[in-house]
């Protein structure tokens, strides 16, 4: 059986892309952000996953309102990126893992998750920037299976439903007949709001409580409705749903090997956690 070796949760701010394009990693604004990933580099080096399942939210590159899935699972041999409107050099694309993709899709549909399967798919900065922060050489030593959760078009799936999705993905990974080492990556958040008069909203108390909960009480955030999460974490802070799915995939108790919380990166409270199943 495949081994689910751990989970990483991280923010995915587009501004990281500009920092990479301009080689700003060592500037005072950016250095603390990039340095926070060094312990994760060491963990990846030591634990060498073969495949990453990536929970992320598309920001209008692959999906438009004509066909907006609640949950989409990639089943493509390759996932290219795009410039997303910002004239930045696109990052290298990613090789998929079709065996794991179809195993996940089969298992999820069997457990009443009504996923949209995507045999041709582009991934946006929510996949490529975390990958580039984890592997600064931008030569990916892993294949990926993207799992996209809708945060664009309300109604969004509830926190409870995203926990259930993550749990089902975790079970499927652990039940995959393969010798591969799999990690889960969840990208988004933490608190931020780009739009409206409340633009710039950040909520450190909530974020820190949320990060604590992921270790000991992963269902904590599921007490809140989606509008309540938006009220606390901001319109884009609701991307924390990706963190919930990632945590749920790990199943039972976890050990937190590393965490970082840094304000601000762009308009965002930037967070990072590295979790291992106990």
């Amino acid at each position: 059986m495949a081994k689910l070796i751990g989970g990483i949760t991280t923010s995915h701010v587009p501004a990281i892309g500009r920092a990479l394009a301009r080689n700003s990693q060592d500037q005072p604004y950016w250095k603390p952000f990039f340095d926070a990933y060094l312990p994760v580099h060491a963990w990846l080096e030591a634990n060498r996953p073969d495949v990453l399942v990536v929970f992320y939210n598309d920001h209008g590159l692959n999906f438009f309102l004509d066909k907006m899935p609640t949950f989409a699972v990639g089943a493509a041999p390759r996932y290219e990126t795009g410039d997303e409107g910002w004239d930045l050099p696109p990052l290298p694309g990613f090789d998929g893992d079709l065996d794991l993709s179809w195993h996940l899709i089969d298992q999820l549909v069997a457990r009443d998750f009504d996923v949209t399967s995507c045999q041709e798919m582009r991934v946006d900065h929510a996949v490529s920037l975390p990958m580039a922060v984890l592997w600064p050489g931008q030569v990916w030593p892993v294949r990926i299976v993207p799992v996209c959760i809708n945060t664009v078009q309300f109604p969004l799936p509830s926190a409870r439903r995203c926990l259930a999705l993550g749990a089902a993905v975790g079970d499927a990974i652990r039940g995959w007949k393969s010798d591969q080492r799999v990690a889960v990556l969840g990208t988004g958040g933490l608190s931020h709001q780009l739009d409206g008069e409340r633009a710039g909203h950040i909520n450190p108390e909530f974020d820190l409580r949320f990060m604590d909960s992921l270790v000991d009480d992963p269902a904590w955030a599921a007490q809140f409705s989606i509008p309540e999460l938006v009220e606390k974490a901001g319109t884009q802070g609701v991307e924390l749903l990706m963190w919930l799915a990632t945590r749920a995939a790990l199943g039972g108790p976890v050990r937190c090997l590393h965490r970082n919380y840094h304000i601000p990166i762009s308009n965002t409270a930037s967070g990072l956690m590295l979790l291992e199943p106990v």
Partner: protein
Amino acid sequence: MCSPAIPGTTLFDGRQARKGYALNKMCFSFNEAANRAAFVQDEDAYCARYGLTAQQREAIRSRNVLQLIAAGGNAYYLAKFAGIFGLDMQDIGAQQTGLTKAEFQARLDAYAR
């Protein structure tokens, strides 16, 4: 959909989506550089192609984010429109909050401990 009002915040629900479809579809097209160039070259023609409402057309003309949201724009798609002008999220935040960019950045920095 019945949501409690959150001050200064618009949830992009079905009501907003219905209002904003043409605008968001145009902004989605800005994923491609050729479309951004076409917009820059002839803004009127490009907007006409997507059938923007008068309110949407005016909001695009004024580059005003709050007006764009009021016209049904979604933040994720509007970010691609902002990209045409090289605006970053602090420019956009400043515009919406009536602050200078430096003031807006200072507000963000103040959250740090």
